[in-house]
């Protein structure tokens, strides 16, 4: 009853040869690796500062408050962003059987985006910020982002317009939701009145500002860190496993339910705030309804591997994907639970939220990114310099994530419970805030260790890919990943 479909690796290129733009793929490939190192190094650095404050080097430019947004911007917009662009420019040309609409626009997009990141890295340490989380960058940079994004959108939709196929594969739908929604989110949340070149005031005030900010913040998670990565999963996972996607029907249903429900869930970041009660309730309800649509993606990924599980044991690319999809499933169960008010009352403001963030970020986004880089390396360079390092990277990363999340859960529960602990006399048991912070130190060190392992893995990857690109290493080493397309 199992109709076994074999897809010759070369099928894609067996079609009438299309002259794909490989240069832009290589460019985004390089940028992804470079920014992964920068962003994760910043993450490990701020993690160290929380465990041992002298690591702030006692000058304003490298203190926690300035490096933390540098970390979040570098990992989200630089690392995750370039990963997505890499995947889109590589896969959409093949899925649509056409070269990109315009090479010039591709180049503008690439260099514009890298310049924006450099501008972020140059302004944040100097304290230039809008003070909106994940939208810290000051207005001139915001305008640059809008311009680059519109150029990207023209190139993206232009390519869809000139496609040589009729059917739009599911990955493309997810990419579309990313391109459209991020544009709307970015522009609406950053509307502000400049008072100088570096300073502006948002046009919203008070609670409205907070609501717009978290409508943006939450959907940055949804449409920057989730839907485009699902698109990548739908292309690279079946490719790497060489198996058909489990269910087309499921992909349609979970796509539409996901994008519809996500937009409403933002208020779960503002529970127990001055936001009207009903809006908080709606945010919580929509978050709960998000479990199944999210798991639809996980299911379609994992069930696609039916019949390929033996290969998961040996192919590190598939290992990265399986762990990524599993952490995605975990984070999207944890998140809805944290949206329930009483649970949020315990979790909010604690390290639990940070743990939740990084099971998504390190597990889902990071491991999808690594898997794609390792999948592409032999296809771009015809080989991989140090195959055994890939396996080592996988284990360092996995153990690092576990240490990170478990320590942050423990820290979050510890502080959440200590803050509210009331003694028999009805008074706070730990009135001295510092005594609670003191208790977290061990957890901060464990998180630092986990983060450092994750970073070491990423450094090994960068080194490996550098050798690969340079032509070093042992040329006849057996590839751990499927042979390159021809």
């Amino acid at each position, binding site marked *: 009853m199992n109709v076994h479909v074999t897809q010759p690796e070369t*099928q894609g290129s067996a*079609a009438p040869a299309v002259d794909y733009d490989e240069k832009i793929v290589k460019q985004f490939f390089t940028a992804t690796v470079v920014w992964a190192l920068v962003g994760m190094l910043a993450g490990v650095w701020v993690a160290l500062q929380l465990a041992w404050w002298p690591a702030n080097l006692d000058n304003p430019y490298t203190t926690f408050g300035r490096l933390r947004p540098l970390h979040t911007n570098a990992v989200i917009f630089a690392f995750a962003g370039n990963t997505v662009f890499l995947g889109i420019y590589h896969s959409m040309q093949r899925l649509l059987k056409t070269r990109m609409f315009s090479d010039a626009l591709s180049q503008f997009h690439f260099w514009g985006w890298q310049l924006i990141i450099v501008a972020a890295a140059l302004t944040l340490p100097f304290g230039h910020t809008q003070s909106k989380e994940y939208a810290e960058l000051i207005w001139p940079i915001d305008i640059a982002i809008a311009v680059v994004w519109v150029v990207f959108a023209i190139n993206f939709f232009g390519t869809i317009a000139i496609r040589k196929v009729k059917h739009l594969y599911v990955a493309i739908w997810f990419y579309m939701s990313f391109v459209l929604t991020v544009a709307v989110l970015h522009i609406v949340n950053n509307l502000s009145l400049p008072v100088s070149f570096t300073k502006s005031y948002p046009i919203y005030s008070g609670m409205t500002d907070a609501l717009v900010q978290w409508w943006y913040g939450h959907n940055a998670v949804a449409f920057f860190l989730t839907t485009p990565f699902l698109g990548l999963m739908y292309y690279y996972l079946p490719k790497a496993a060489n198996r058909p996607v489990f269910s087309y029907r499921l992909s349609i249903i979970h796509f539409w339910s996901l994008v519809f429900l996500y937009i409403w869930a933002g208020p779960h970041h503002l529970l127990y705030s001055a936001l009207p009660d009903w809006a908080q309730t709606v945010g919580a*309800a929509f978050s709960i309804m998000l479990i199944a649509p999210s798991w639809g993606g996980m299911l379609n990924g994992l*069930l696609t591997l039916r019949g390929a599980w033996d290969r998961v044991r040996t192919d590190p690319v598939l290992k990265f994907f399986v762990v990524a999809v599993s952490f995605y499933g975990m984070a999207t169960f944890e998140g809805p639970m944290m949206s329930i008010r009483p649970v949020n009352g315990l979790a909010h403001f604690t390290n639990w939220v940070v743990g939740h963030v990084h099971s998504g970020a390190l597990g889902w986004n990071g491991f999808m990114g690594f898997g794609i880089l390792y999948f592409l390396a032999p296809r771009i360079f015809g080989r991989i310099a140090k195959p055994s390092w890939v396996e080592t990277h996988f284990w360092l990363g996995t153990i690092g994530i576990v240490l990170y999340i478990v320590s942050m859960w423990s820290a979050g529960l510890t502080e959440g419970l200590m803050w509210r602990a009331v003694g028999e006399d*009805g008074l706070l048991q730990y009135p001295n805030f510092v005594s609670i912070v003191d208790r977290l130190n061990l957890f901060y060190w464990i998180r630092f260790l986990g983060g450092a392992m994750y970073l070491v893995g990423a450094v090994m990857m960068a080194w490996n890919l550098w050798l690969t690109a340079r032509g070093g290493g042992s040329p006849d080493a057996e590839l751990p990943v499927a042979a390159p397309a021809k």
Partner: protein
Amino acid sequence: MSKNTDEVLGHADESDGIEEYDNPLPDWWIGLFFLTIIWGVWHIADWHFITPTSNEAHYEAEMAAAAEQWPDLGKKAERDDSPETLALGKELYTANCVACHMADLSGGIGPNLKDSEWIHGGDYESVVNTLTNGVAAKGMPAWGPVLGPKKVAALASYVLSENTGEAPAAPAEEPAAAPEGGAEGTPTDVEAGPADGKAIFEKNCVACHKADLSGLVGPNLKDDEWIHGGSLEEIVATITNGVPEKGMISWKTQLSDEEIAAVAKYVFEYED
């Protein structure tokens, strides 16, 4: 058992060779989806209409439960000058207040509590209020949530019993000899005079640096780590000028040059 047909849709040539099955949605997944939708709708109905549990209602319920469990907590306790209460007050004062108000209530980071001058009122009610709510903007902590009304009452009673109503120290009291040139006015003669460094330290410094110099509010003074320099001259300068932005007092108006030299020498030479 499985409803999966595993039949490919057949448009792999339109998706770079990736085939797609069109398997039905797993039953448990559909069940989960409906369950969460029902949960969501029920959550909205329940929170607002069935057992209205608005944030305010939650807050009030919790406060009511607390009021029942600890009926005295919300109330203010009366002034009580009995010896036991004053002893408790003194104990609490020593444990919590000396770092800022000094053991003799003469003031340091926080104001003098002995004199007749009050920023926030010197009657019992006002002192209880100040203690309960603190003055966050000026660095006076709120003690109500920490100590509770009984202990706050004991403290207020103690403070008022110690209040002599003396005239506030006039600015003229500042030693006219305070070296001109402010920060640079470090005494060059650091020979300890007759003043007893240990006694001065114990009277003025232990609240923040502890009697064994191991540090509390202020840093450890017996280790080798010095923020502002560990030579005798540098220690004299730090004591003389203070580090106001971090809470270390400038002692030049309260101690004479000899006393500063003596206490600096005591710190410099201290060994366990």
